[in-house]
């Protein structure tokens, strides 16, 4: 068992020293986006992967997080670090209110309800200049007031600070994800995914277990929203409360591997650069070509790896280990 644990440490060490060798702020910015999407995908995975509920409205919580911290910062001067937690809690609270009725729906009806509610929130933020009396500027979007280099205001000239914050957030959410997966809750969620009635007759409180997972998922998604706001320094309802963002969170998990700790990370690690590259190389030519190519890659990934990349990588690792000279493969060891 101990051997397996070495790999994450190597990956983490590599991720920590990586910015030292990269000077281009464009690449750092891209790396931050990969980390952020990996983080969001990992958060989504708790309800979409472990609990098997395909929510396509998770941008709602990202938006709540972004708007909460931004309003607190621009109106009251509250540090985004505090706004982050407040936004997380508000996002979690909202997810319970949304989840309670939606969890009564099954399969695609649940998904449709989450999309509908996302659009409701988005339209409210687009058309109203004030939400609960706080200025949010409607469809114009909000700029985060510039404070210069300031840790309290979570604003940095050097993008590397954002890199390390995003990395720390990702590590935390992965640890949480691992705890959820390997605890009682993980077993209960896995049971709920396949058969709610059977789970219930074994003493699983199905609604409460799902709401717990939903809260954790939304809490972390909302925190990611605050980080996004501080990184881009501008938020507007079409992006941070958008269907695209919701879809991306789900997509990275589905391609990477649902209900696994590493799947969402692998998904983001593969797809964000592919998306970037197709856009930068093909985006200038035929209009829409980049999207077509990106779409084909996604379709191929789902067709050939319906259970995600993570499982295939594991098989590959086992295969390589068995071919390594001087090592007795596990099978031979047993025989």
């Amino acid at each position, binding site marked *: 068992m101990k051997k397996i644990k070495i790999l994450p440490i190597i990956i983490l060490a590599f991720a920590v020293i990586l910015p030292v060798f990269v000077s281009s702020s464009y690449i750092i910015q891209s790396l931050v986006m990969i980390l952020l999407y990996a983080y969001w995908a990992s958060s989504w995975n708790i309800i979409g992967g472990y609990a098997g509920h395909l929510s396509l409205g998770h941008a709602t919580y990202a938006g709540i997080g972004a708007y909460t911290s931004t309003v607190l910062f621009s109106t009251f001067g509250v540090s985004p670090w505090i706004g982050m937690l407040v936004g997380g809690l508000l996002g979690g609270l909202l997810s319970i209110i949304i989840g309670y009725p939606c969890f009564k729906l099954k399969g695609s009806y649940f998904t449709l309800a989450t999309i509908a509610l996302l659009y409701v929130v988005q339209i409210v933020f687009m058309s109203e200049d004030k939400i609960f009396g706080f200025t949010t500027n409607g469809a114009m979007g909000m700029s985060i007031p510039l404070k210069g280099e300031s840790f309290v205001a979570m604003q940095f000239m050097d993008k590397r600070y954002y890199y390390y914050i995003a990395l720390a957030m990702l590590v935390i959410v992965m640890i949480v994800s691992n705890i959820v997966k*390997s*605890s*009682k809750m993980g*077993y*209960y969620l*896995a*049971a709920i*995914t*396949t*058969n709610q*009635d*059977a*789970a*219930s*007759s*074994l*003493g*699983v*409180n*199905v609604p409460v277990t799902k709401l717990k997972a939903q809260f954790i998922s939304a809490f972390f998604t909302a925190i990611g929203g605050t980080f996004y706001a501080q990184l881009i320094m501008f938020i507007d309802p079409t992006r941070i409360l958008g269907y695209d963002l919701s879809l991306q969170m789900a997509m990275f998990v589905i391609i990477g591997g649902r209900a696994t700790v590493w799947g969402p990370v692998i998904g983001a690690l593969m797809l964000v650069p592919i998306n970037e590259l197709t856009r930068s190389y093909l985006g200038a030519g035929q209009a829409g070509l980049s999207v077509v190519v990106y779409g084909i890659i996604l379709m191929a990934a789902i067709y050939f790896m319906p259970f995600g990349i993570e499982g295939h990588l594991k098989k590959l690792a086992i295969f390589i280990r068995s071919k390594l000279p001087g090592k007795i493969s596990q099978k031979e060891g047993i025989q």
Partner: protein
Amino acid sequence: MNNCNKILIVENLTKKFGGLTAIDNANLYVNKGEIIGMIGANGAGKTTLFNMISGAFQPTSGTILFHDMNITHLKSHQVCKMGIARTYQIVQPFENLTVLENTMVGSFIHTGDVNAAKVKAMDVLQFLGLSNRAHAKGSDLTLSELKRLEMAKALATNPEIILLDEVMAGLNPTSCGTVVELIKKIRDSGTTVLVIEHVMKAIMSLSDRIYVLNQGRIIAEGVPQDVVNRPEVIKSYLGEKAYAKGI
């Protein structure tokens, strides 16, 4: 038989699905340590009765008492926590989990600790002779193993009463024999058993008492030999003609 022995009492229980009365004014009781058989033709309402006792269905009227507590309107997870577990006629394994993990879902009811749940689940699998399949996926099992997995999941919740819904259906005679022995073992370990079964030979040899259902009504109750010779039971099972011929 005094009242304190009766751990489960069902009084005037009725379930209507629209115009159809699935269970009509059923009364029954279960003593601690008994094996109770439930027989009846398909559609007689046996599974509906189980569904109401286990909390999956809400009855239209009537009460269910467990240790003199009213559990009529509890949800199924609450009923399970009280100490009544059930299996499903159509096996319901968690296909993405192994046999051990399936069973752990049940044993988590009394613990939050993964290792404790694993130990408990392993004990149950050992008891049912499934421990050699502990790491097989739920989707890779034979029917006989799946039926035992159903029992394992329910037993892992440490129930006082276990409701077994056709755990022998579709099994060959040898496997049936194994299950009969298992059910006796379950009772001997202190769990009261309610069993729905069509395999008459098994139910006759197992049950202390039998309830016979016909079209939602309990038409007979008593010791096996006695019950199967009653005219109304023969009529419901074999028809009027057979009864008249004296089969």
